[in-house]
């Protein structure tokens, strides 16, 4: 995102203390680390972390969010800084856009199509051609957001079947399962999805938008950041499925990177570090942006996407969801 600051990933359990204007990360085993606060954009806690109020007030002053990933690697919540970027005028425009079915439905439909486009682009273009055409036709006359999500679910099921054919036996998904993920492949995808979602929340918090008011997912349901769910949708395949395919074909993932029980699976400590490092590097990959005419990191794409939604709300531009263009 557009600053010198960066994301810090906490992959071991630790205590965060405040030392003047810096963060002091105290780990049980290993050295303490000092981080100047101006270098932090957000923190992602993959393991239990202790914080106290003086740390929180420092984080709040600098508008830094801490995203928490749970035991199974799913997103469990955030310590969010006070909502200073949100602007009343933008939120009112956003509500007007989201509550007007005439204008919100095309956006929701576009999000579903763009997601399917990206999934097909990542997994297999030829094998997913037919399901993609079906999805395009069915979304044409879908009456509401719920049926759009149903159509997307159908497409996703065929996409996962195709994905299984490209994975080694032990990594195959056999259908998507969450909370807890049933096998190694699902554990991997859940974990990366959680990270992408968390990063989307950070991107949205930099814009004046309200994270709860969405177009596709139902607004403010169960205290989730629904807009972040909408926006993370297009990016999840680019990180989760793609990294899974890549790391499997490079033989980087080994069975010992997962703790597998009879009915659930999660990343082990070494696996978590490996995956987090891979995701972090992936976020830093750059691609040349066609309009901005400069290289843009993958995680900056999340922010640019949030800006596009802002423009749609504030200025009534048509919003074109992200499609992989390279």
């Amino acid at each position: 995102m557009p600053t010198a600051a960066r994301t810090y990933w906490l992959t071991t359990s630790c205590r965060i203390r405040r030392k003047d204007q810096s963060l002091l990360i105290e780990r049980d085993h290993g050295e303490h680390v000092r981080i100047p606060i101006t270098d932090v954009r957000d923190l992602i806690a993959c393991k239990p972390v202790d914080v106290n109020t003086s740390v929180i007030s420092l984080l709040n002053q600098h508008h830094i969010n801490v995203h928490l990933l749970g035991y199974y690697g799913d997103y469990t919540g955030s310590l969010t800084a006070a909502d200073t970027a949100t602007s009343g005028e933008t939120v009112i425009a956003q509500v007007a856009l989201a509550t007007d079915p005439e204008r919100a439905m095309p956006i929701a439909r576009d999000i579903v199509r763009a997601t399917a486009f990206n999934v097909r682009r990542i997994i297999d273009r030829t094998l997913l051609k037919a399901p993609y055409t079906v999805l395009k036709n069915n979304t044409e006359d879908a009456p509401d957001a719920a049926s759009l999500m149903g159509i997307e679910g159908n497409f996703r099921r065929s996409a996962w079947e195709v994905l299984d054919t490209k994975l080694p036996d032990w990594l195959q998904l056999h259908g998507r399962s969450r909370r807890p993920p049933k096998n190694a492949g699902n554990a991997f995808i859940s974990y990366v999805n959680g990270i992408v979602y968390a990063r989307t929340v950070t991107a949205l918090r930099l814009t004046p938008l309200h994270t709860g008011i969405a177009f596709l997912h139902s607004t403010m349901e169960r205290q989730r950041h629904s807009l972040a769910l909408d926006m993370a949708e297009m990016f999840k395949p680019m990180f989760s499925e793609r990294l899974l395919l890549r790391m499997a074909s490079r033989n980087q993932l080994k069975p010992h990177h997962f703790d597998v029980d009879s009915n659930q699976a999660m990343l082990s400590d070494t696996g978590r570090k490996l995956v987090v490092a891979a995701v972090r590097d992936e976020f830093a990959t750059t691609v040349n942006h066609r309009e901005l005419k400069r290289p843009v990191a993958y995680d900056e794409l999340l922010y640019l996407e949030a800006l596009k939604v802002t423009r749609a709300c504030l200025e009534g531009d048509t919003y074109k969801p992200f499609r992989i263009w390279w």
Partner: protein
Amino acid sequence: MISEQDVGGVHIKYLYHCPRQLWLFARGFRPEATSATVQLGEAVHDTSYRRAHPVDLGSARLDDLDGNLWVHETKSSSRPSPADEAQAIHYCYRLRLVGVDTQGAILRYPKTRRTQRMPYEPDWDERARTDIANVRTTVAQPLSPPRPARTRCRGCSYFDYCWSQ
């Protein structure tokens, strides 16, 4: 939409720099916090003329007012611009409103170590009032003003917003 008292130095600066920027700024969209250029400007501010005492006029905040009632304004750019001048004039006007008879303004450019002295002129109050009126009409427009030529957008913290599709 905003009252005369709410118009501050930043509004005046943006009015001269780019009306669209002003329009967006007034709607509460402020991406400056993430802009490296703005961070540089803040750093220049923090490291130059450290004995200056900022004067807070509510919406406007000027860098320093010395004992002889000169307004001081520090700029991180190396090139003087009409926006800098208008900003200084605005501050003088605001000070006169609260009964401080300023002598004029001094613009300081630490990067090139230049200063520009602007003694008070009688037409300043009129200019300041026109600027305020212009700010208010720009902000009140229902549609956003168009983008300026891309070359003028360099270094603007709204660049990503305006130019990515």
